[in-house]
């Protein structure tokens, strides 16, 4: 997924999941993020937050998936996890950023970005979220 441009750094680890855009895959995706976060030694609250953030990101995008596919890229590097969820949409609208999902997402992630870019007559609709491990190691 050239479009998905996750973490810029070469040495980042990456898992990409391509799946059907159906609600039933969401538990799998959030389990993946939780597992990554746990293994990156994120504190357990951050693990929970990421789990929820992925949930929200997916549910924001699922309804607009025009071709029934969803791509989720997890990438991580020392103390930082980035998740990019994307679908191909027929519409260019951003969805509203006052929605509850977005509010939650921005609260749960260290930073979150919503982008819609034209792609082959359709639009690539994306939610990117970054969570950094806040806890200093003791």
């Amino acid at each position, binding site marked *: 997924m050239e479009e998905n441009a996750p973490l810029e750094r070469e040495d980042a680890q990456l898992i990409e999941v391509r799946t059907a855009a159906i*609600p*039933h895959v*969401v*538990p799998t995706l959030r*389990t993946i993020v*939780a*597992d990554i976060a*746990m*293994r990156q*030694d*994120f*504190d*357990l*609250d*951050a*693990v929970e937050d990421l789990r929820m953030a992925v*949930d*929200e990101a997916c*549910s*924001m995008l*699922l*309804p607009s998936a025009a071709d029934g596919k969803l791509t989720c890229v997890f990438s991580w590097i020392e103390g930082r996890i980035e998740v990019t969820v994307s679908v191909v949409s027929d519409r260019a609208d951003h969805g509203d950023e006052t*929605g*509850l*999902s977005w509010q939650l997402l921005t609260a749960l992630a260290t930073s979150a970005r919503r982008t819609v870019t034209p792609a082959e007559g359709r639009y690539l609709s994306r939610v990117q979220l970054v969570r950094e491990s806040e*806890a200093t*190691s*003791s």
Partner: protein
Amino acid sequence: MTNPAGGEPTDVPALFHELAELPERSPRREEIRDRLVREHLELARNLARKFRNRDEAMDDLVQIATVGLIHAVDRYDPAQGTDFLAFAVPTISGELRHHFRDNSWSVRVPRRLKELNATISAAREDLTVRLSRAPKPSEIARHLDVPIEDVYEGLRAGQGRYGASLDNLLENSAHTRFGAPDANLGQAELREALRPMLDSLPERERKIVALRFGSGMSQSDIARRVGVSQMQVSRLLAATLKKLRAGLAETDITEGT
């Protein structure tokens, strides 16, 4: 069936005695059994309360305790010489304990993992207090002196504790917004503020405003209906709205006007 509270006090030993004497098929057995169970429901509830934790619904516990009570009534043998309560309490507690041992995880997880998960939960609480933040898996491993992989495994196992219904997933999705402010709330406020002003308008103007904004009629339709020209409707509307706006400014909710 038989008297619940009130009526004559139940002589529990006598009932058990009678029960023991009765022939196997006697319909009276059912009656006595029922009465004995009802008599001790409060005991079951009390025991259930002792097992109460934040994870389990109280109703479920009471139900389990009641099953235990029914077992106790069925198994109690007055010939043994012990008091019924002395027999019932451990029977009911046992039933509750079995429940916790066997059924409180909605996904079956090996016992080793259950125990590991319990240790991790305890460590998590300890460490959260000590660190004033949630611990990391590595900190839990160090605290418990177990390999980090075990902590991963235990944490993952914890996810199986409570199954979530598939419907739940859909309900929680973003499309249903819970707790979002009603889109018409601001409107409602304005409407309330407008009401007294509308009431003070002359009859004809009020009617025009109502037809335009209440019924959504076009100015031409209103003109025909009220019997004036469309131009006049337009002028009247403009004047009326100006009046209302000025009135609203006084009441200080002018947003969106």
